[in-house]
């Protein structure tokens, strides 16, 4: 079981680790912080050109860039949390072997750092929404709930991969593919309505699908309200997954010194 009390004792470590991760990320590149702004814009540009302009896929009356960004903010958060969580043990092997501290602080600090990227992408989306006269409704009150569920779910998946990475080093190679397939099975780039009926079940087996749709319900002011029951189920599933991830992570963290 994750030791929450101990983690709380080390809360200052969480802060300094988060600061370290962000700072190192910005310092190692020439334009540093600008990348956080450029990344969603570049991705949007690429997919707008291919899917919006060339393939002209229908996006339910919403301009493609906005349709894309409204899903991308969720996907970006998820993939970043999963990626950093997966590598968090490997990348800190030196300090793990040589000192004692709750290892969970490593992926959790990365998760907190990913929220910075989310916030920036969200603000970009927000500007696009305002410029295109999308109304800012009471639906936005649901945003923190959706964000919380997404973060817990993503963190859980990240912890599972982090544990897997310790015992099975090939995880490095297939994680990129898993995330790629996962993205195509999430309605980020295209609406689920263009997916053939018999394949849609694949999308709905993916918990991210309903999260992305719920976020779009907030941003784009269309679609169905994700019922309270559905939200509750998502929340419980996300928490269960997080616990499973944390248990797996805890059981692997002690083995890392032997395996590496």
């Amino acid at each position, binding site marked *: 079981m994750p030791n929450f009390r101990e983690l709380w004792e080390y809360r*200052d470590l969480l*802060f300094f680790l988060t600061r*370290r991760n962000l700072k190192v990320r910005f310092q190692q590149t020439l334009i540093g912080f600008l990348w956080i702004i450029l990344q969603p814009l570049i991705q949007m540009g690429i997919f707008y050109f291919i899917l919006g302009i060339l393939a002209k896929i229908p996006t339910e009356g919403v301009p493609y860039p906005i349709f894309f960004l409204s899903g991308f903010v969720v996907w970006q958060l998820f993939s970043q949390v999963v990626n950093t969580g997966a590598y968090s043990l490997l990348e800190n092997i030196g300090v793990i072997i040589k*000192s004692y501290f709750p290892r969970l602080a490593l992926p959790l600090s990365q998760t907190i750092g990913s929220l910075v990227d989310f916030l920036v992408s969200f603000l970009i989306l927000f500007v696009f929404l305002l410029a295109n006269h999308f109304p800012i409704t009471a639906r936005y009150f649901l945003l923190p709930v959706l964000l919380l569920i997404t973060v817990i779910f993503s963190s859980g998946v990240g912890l599972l991969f982090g544990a897997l990475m310790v015992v099975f080093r090939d995880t490095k190679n297939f994680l990129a593919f898993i995330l790629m397939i996962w993205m195509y099975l999430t309605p980020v780039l295209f609406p689920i309505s263009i997916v053939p009926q018999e394949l849609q079940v694949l999308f709905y087996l993916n918990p991210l699908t309903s999260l992305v749709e719920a976020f779009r319900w907030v941003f784009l002011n269309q679609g169905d309200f994700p019922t309270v029951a559905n939200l509750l189920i998502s929340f419980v599933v996300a928490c269960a997954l997080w616990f499973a991830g944390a248990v797996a992570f805890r059981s692997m963290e002690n083995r890392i010194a032997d395996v590496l």
Partner: protein
Amino acid sequence: MYERVNSLLEVGTGFNTELSGRENIYLNGSFLGMKSFEIRQKFDQIVGFSEIGEFIDTPVKYYSSGMFVRLAFSVAVHLTPETLLLDEVLAVGDAGFRQKSMEKMKELLTSGATIVLVSHSEQSIRDICDRAIWLDKGAVKMDGPATEVVEKYTQFIKAG
């Protein structure tokens, strides 16, 4: 295993060279389970001892290896050392700093800390340790009072 074992197996474990000396002090302290206010209390002592001075806000990647070792050593001896593990770190640093490090370690010992020193230097073992374990190819060759073990070791080396 909940005791704070402050380890310095390799000087600067957990140091990140992109960060400044100041940031590394805080990061290192928090790895050891210290609260930021506890680190703040010892901050001036650490910087003073390390003789880093005005470079404390410079990224560590621009430090000379001597500066790096001084800071890392200073962090280790000032942050909650109940058990301090030192692996050959005394070989580095200038003579003045080495002298100061010795004194600091003796001070820690009198205050009740345990120091595990890994070293080939007979002089430092004689100076600091009560008990010594002589390892040869991973096996314990001798275990006893430091002076006796060092004596036997010196004889063994001379005998070839």
